[in-house]
């Protein structure tokens, strides 16, 4: 499985250390704090983002990230390399935890297009928006992002996770298939449906062209 780590720091760390995950886990089991730090830096970003996009709740995403790595601290030998990559293993834990939490707490996305109401949990900064863009463009961009976020969160979990992994985390389909334990064909069909659903939702909000769907 391969997924891109967008964090520059993670890239640097991966380049710096040639130690593979299995060796790192051995070191972690022996109490090597630096090895744990390397693994944490490698995977905390994608896992945190995944939990965040899946739940739409910042605090929950932090808790899930913490729980995933706590499990790694307590039971590093539980990971079986023959079953897949460490990233996939950690994602699997995060996925299960997120689903359970969301089911338990019934933290569902508000279906209304109230961007302000959800800003507390999912505040969008202005970082991605070009400073040179005018206020109107900024507003449109912000509206688009917010609409997409709420639309993604309103998708059924099986479609949501495919969109998050493939479109937001830029994981390839075979990687997502390995992680979600289904065939790449299933992933492809889920992604197709999920995108269609998203376009519909976005069109309803008037953010994409209705005719082109």
């Amino acid at each position: 499985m391969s997924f891109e780590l967008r964090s520059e720091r993670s890239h640097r760390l991966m380049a710096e250390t040639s130690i593979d995950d299995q060796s790192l886990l051995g070191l972690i089991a022996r109490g090597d704090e630096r090895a744990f730090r390397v693994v944490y830096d490698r995977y905390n970003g994608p896992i945190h983002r995944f939990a965040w996009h899946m739940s739409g709740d910042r605090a929950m995403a932090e808790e899930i990230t913490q729980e995933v790595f706590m499990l790694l601290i307590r039971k590093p030998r539980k990971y079986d390399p023959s079953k897949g990559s460490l990233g996939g293993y950690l994602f699997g834990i995060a996925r299960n935890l997120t689903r359970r939490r969301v089911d338990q707490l019934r933290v569902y996305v508000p279906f209304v297009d109230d961007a302000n109401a959800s800003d507390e949990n999912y505040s969008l900064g202005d970082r991605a928006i070009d400073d040179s863009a005018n206020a109107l463009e900024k507003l449109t961009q912000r509206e688009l992002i917010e609409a997409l976020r709420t639309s993604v969160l309103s998708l059924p979990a099986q479609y949501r996770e495919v969109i998050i992994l493939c479109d937001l985390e830029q994981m390839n389909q075979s990687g997502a298939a390995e992680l979600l334990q289904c065939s790449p064909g299933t992933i492809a069909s889920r992604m197709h449906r999920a995108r269609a659903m998203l376009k519909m939702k976005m069109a309803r909000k008037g953010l994409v062209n209705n005719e082109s769907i």
Partner: protein
Amino acid sequence: MNQSEERLAQAFQALSAESPQSAPAEVGLALQDAFRRYHVRRRRQRRLITAGVLGACLVVAAVLLSKSRSSGLQEKQPTLATRQEQSLPNPETRSLGAVPNNTQVKSTIASLRKVHRKARPSANVVSNFTSLASYDPAFSKDGFKIVRVGLSSAELSQMGAPSNVYPAGRRVLTDVVLDRDGIPIAVRTVGR
């Protein structure tokens, strides 16, 4: 790619860029702290377990050693037993050096290896006592002491007891009656 897909891709890019690059620093610090604490606790537990196992091993070794020692002693010891059927003589009079003509007594006493307080019941055949030359019915009346010892036929003959029935070099279990002065006055064999 049609317009709606383009717009969607653009939105995905923007949302992806807006997403946090990593979990907050506090999460990392808390996890690092948890990692440290967990391994300190684990090391302490391991040390305790190791010490416990080591202690248990030592105790087992000590018990085994003491057992093997005691069994070794029992094997080495011949079946010597002392039966105190009558009152013990005065310690002063037990002094062998003071006894005249004590060569026989000395050799008898020297052959005593171990004295058992309780006489073990024996399945051996017990013969009658044979009085020795040193026995004087006029003087010896009480204060007798019977000592069970293993004696060779040579020692028996030295004491004046009949020993020709036993092969030379073999120790014979013998009850020796000592008078108050520690002089053997009678013997009986407890042979089979």
